[in-house]
């Protein structure tokens, strides 16, 4: 038997990325609306963050409720480096990546001694602390008044000023991110991450260093989030700390969970569903006769979210791959532990 059969899912994803690229290119010609293109810019940006989260959550099995912090680090690095100090935008992106890596290391080393709910809370706390920094360090970030006047993204003299050019940029980055993640999860490192998810003690017994592996996953996802944040800042040109609050981290988590974290495509699927559900509810809810404000959209969104997760607890893409429950091995252990502790 040759390796062909083994790499089937890898090649399958590769075809997927190719089809995606093709679709991305023809899409603007089919749908000329700038509004729809902009929703896809947002989807692309969220898709980048969530693809990183898929590596961290779906493969390494580590939950994060603090990824808005990395998104914000990217956004503010770009804003400050290119908006305040007038360096080229690429320098801002790189600065963001660098800071995100360092911060990921600093938070990851103590956090990864924790598991599940405790890890979720630690990352949540980390998110709040970064938010406070962005809010209080007014001399650098402009504080709650926000930071405006961020120049458009520019590389090699080409400036991404139109929605359409930015759309291509974002989706090219996303496609690269998907390709990178696909390579990674079908490699020695990816298997090591999945092993940790499967059984930490067994992973250690075959020589996998839990801490460094988890850190790698965290750093990768932090870099993805930071790059997306940088691009976002250049796209929107005005940012303020409230964009990177805990709620944003929760939104990222929502996307990954509804998309399904065990599939490479879960992050992107979640981003599409989230953004379009919110947009479509804006049109649909008034049709049902509720015309007051957004409260009904919020209620409907909440109900749909709950219903979806009750019927597809592993997310849309997750159940398709017929994987077992995302956190099932750990979940069982929680109960054991609880039983024992009492």
């Amino acid at each position: 038997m040759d390796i062909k059969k083994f790499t089937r899912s890898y090649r399958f994803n590769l075809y997927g990325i190719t089809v995606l690229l093709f679709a991305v290119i023809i899409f603007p010609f089919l749908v000329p609306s700038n509004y729809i293109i902009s929703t896809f810019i947002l989807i692309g940006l969220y898709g980048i963050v969530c693809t990183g989260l898929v590596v961290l959550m779906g493969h390494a099995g580590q939950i994060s409720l603090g990824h808005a912090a990395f998104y914000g680090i990217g956004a503010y690095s770009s804003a400050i480096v290119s908006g305040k100090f007038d360096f080229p935008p690429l320098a801002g992106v790189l600065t963001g990546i660098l800071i995100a890596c360092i911060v990921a290391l600093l938070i990851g080393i103590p956090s990864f001694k924790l598991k599940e709910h405790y890890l979720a809370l630690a990352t949540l706390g980390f998110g709040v602390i970064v938010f406070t920094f962005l809010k209080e360090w007014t001399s650098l970030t402009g504080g709650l008044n926000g930071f405006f006047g961020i120049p458009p993204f520019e590389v090699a003299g080409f400036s991404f000023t139109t929605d359409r050019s930015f759309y291509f940029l974002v989706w090219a980055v996303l496609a690269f991110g998907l390709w990178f993640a696909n390579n990674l999860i079908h490699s020695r490192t990816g298997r090591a991450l999945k092993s940790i998810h499967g059984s930490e003690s067994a992973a250690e017994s075959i020589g996998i260093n839990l801490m460094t592996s988890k850190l790698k996953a965290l750093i990768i996802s932090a870099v993805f989030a930071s790059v997306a944040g940088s691009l976002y800042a250049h796209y929107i040109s005005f940012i303020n700390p409230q964009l990177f609050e805990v709620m944003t981290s929760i939104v990222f988590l929502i996307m990954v969970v509804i998309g399904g974290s065990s599939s490479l495509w879960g992050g992107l699927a979640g981003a599409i569903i989230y953004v379009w559900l919110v947009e479509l509810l804006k049109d649909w809810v008034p049709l049902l006769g509720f015309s007051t404000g957004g409260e009904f959209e919020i209620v409907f969104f909440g109900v749909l979210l709950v219903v979806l997760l009750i019927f597809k607890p592993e997310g849309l893409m997750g159940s398709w791959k017929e994987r077992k429950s995302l956190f099932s091995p750990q979940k069982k252990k929680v109960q054991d532990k609880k039983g024992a502790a009492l």
Partner: protein
Amino acid sequence: MNLLEIKNLSKDFGGVHAVQDVSFTIKQESITALIGPNGAGKTTVFNMITGVFPPSDGTIILDTKKISNKKPHQIAKEGITRTFQNLQLFADMTVIENIMAGMHLLTKTGVWKAGLRLTSAKREEQYIYDKSMEWLKKLNLEQEAYLPAGTLSYGKQRLVEIGRAVITQPKLILLDEPMAGLNHNESAKLADLLLDMKKEGNTFLLVEHDMEIVMRVADHIVVLDHGVKIAEGTPDEIQQNASVIAAYLGSEVTV
């Protein structure tokens, strides 16, 4: 030639002496069995050797190198791998992926090479795959290669776990009750496999309750009771040892 040397090993858990002053050695290309009644401290000894927790006292020496106090993944790197009493397979991964994961230490592709899929990464992936397939054939698991490991029968899951532990050709393999849950036929086959692998140069340390199997495969037996070593010797010697018999049958004899 001694592969592993355990000297005066002790472990206290909050005042409870789980293991006390245990010493023994393991010879190259041998099968050593660690036996004793429940609660004798066998798994504790295992966990100390594999670095799950450090010994309270004493040393563990592998090939003249002191390995006590190292972390589990470092111990694996030194050349000791293990299986677990309650199966610890990567249930969501396929059988071949489980075996391939076992190759972690033999390979070195990092995040960047893997993520960008450089030629060296591809080459290494092919190597990992070939080698793993080879082992699957040896273990007679070829047909199940692409099934999720969690769906296999208990006996086959054991085999996968052993395959994952031996693929890196470690110096020493620790098997924690490998026969548990297997039927008579399966245990006999596994015993044959172990003997074959010994001939190929592997060294095993196993904890086992199935005395018939132990007597058949072991070259050397160490008996623990209440955390203390009470006997050591060849299967014949142990079978005749009075204190071993007392430890195993103690209560019944006195009653």
